[in-house]
């Protein structure tokens, strides 16, 4: 029984890893993009389980929320928006699929020669940094009465707090840059995805919107001629 408990992480790793690899192959192999998206969702959930196995609970939760919740909905939304059934029923593979498989084989052989199991030995390192937070709590000093000293309190199993400490202390500037990046990406997506109006829509559109479109066109023309 103890042996089974000890080998449980390995069993979970093999099972979840197999499911992840199989579903990722199906992402590539499926003809319908909706099926691809659903298998991609399965892959993301398996990867989230693998994250939790490695004491990265917060990253696992972010994986489920952002990837499985946000990005997958975006993909499915676009697949539904673009009417796939009206696309001609042509072949799935690109013209240079042979070269693609060749490149894949070469990269895989490279990975096998470099990182096959047994190449790296596992060090015995202190893994407590991943999930502990040290707080400095003020208290009355014992040496000097009347003055305030500090007492260190260590709290364990708080992975998200440890990540927050790292993110807001050591990586504050990259964090702000990431927020700026998200703003730029949002504006870019809105500007690129904006749609020119068709003639029918201009007829059925309410007057105030028509006025606004006309003003925009005039301003654009003036700025072009200026």
């Amino acid at each position, binding site marked *: 029984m103890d042996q089974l408990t000890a080998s449980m*992480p390995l069993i979970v*790793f093999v099972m979840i*890893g197999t499911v*992840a*690899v199989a579903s*990722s192959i199906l*992402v*590539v192999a499926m003809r319908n*993009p909706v099926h*691809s*998206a659903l298998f991609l969702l399965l*892959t993301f959930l398996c*990867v989230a389980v*693998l*994250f939790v*196995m*490695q*004491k*990265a609970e917060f*990253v696992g939760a*972010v994986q489920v929320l*952002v*990837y499985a919740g*946000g*990005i997958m909905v*975006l*993909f499915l939304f*676009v697949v539904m928006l*673009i009417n796939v059934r009206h*696309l001609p029923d*042509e072949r799935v*593979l*690109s013209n*240079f*699929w042979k*070269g*693609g498989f060749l*490149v*894949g084989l070469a*990269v*895989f052989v490279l*990975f096998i020669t470099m*990182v*096959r*199991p047994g190449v*790296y030995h596992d060090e015995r*390192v202190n893994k*407590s940094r*991943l999930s502990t937070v040290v707080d400095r709590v003020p208290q009355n000093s014992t040496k000097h009465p009347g003055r305030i000293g500090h007492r260190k309190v260590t709290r364990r199993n708080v992975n998200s707090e*440890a*990540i927050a400490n*790292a993110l807001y202390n*050591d990586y504050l500037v*990259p964090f702000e840059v990431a927020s700026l*990046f*998200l703003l730029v*990406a949002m504006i*870019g*997506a809105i500007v*690129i995805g904006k749609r020119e109006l068709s003639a029918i829509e201009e007829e059925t559109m309410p007057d105030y919107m028509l006025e606004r479109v006309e003003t925009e066109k005039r301003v654009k023309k003036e700025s072009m001629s200026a």
Partner: protein
Amino acid sequence: MPEIGAWLMLSGTLFTVGLVGVIIRRNMITVLMCIELMLNAVNINLVAFSHRLGSLEGQVFTIFIITVAAGEAAVGLAIIIQLYRLRSTINVDEARELNG
């Protein structure tokens, strides 16, 4: 717990599958999905080394990669929608005005 080489092998396999998908598929949405797959494989690598070295940097960088992946998906899908409006196709091989 499986050793680090097993994690790296799994990550490399997922990365290879994503790379092959990017090259051989013609549907642009599937190509974007394969790019997400490759980013996820890199995330497995980072978290595995974070666990092995007992340091948090790998997890922090994983969060940054997830951020970049979200932005990339948003802009890429907007480009795909606009291409579909202009050309009525999302085939990678047909978008060749620049002769790339």
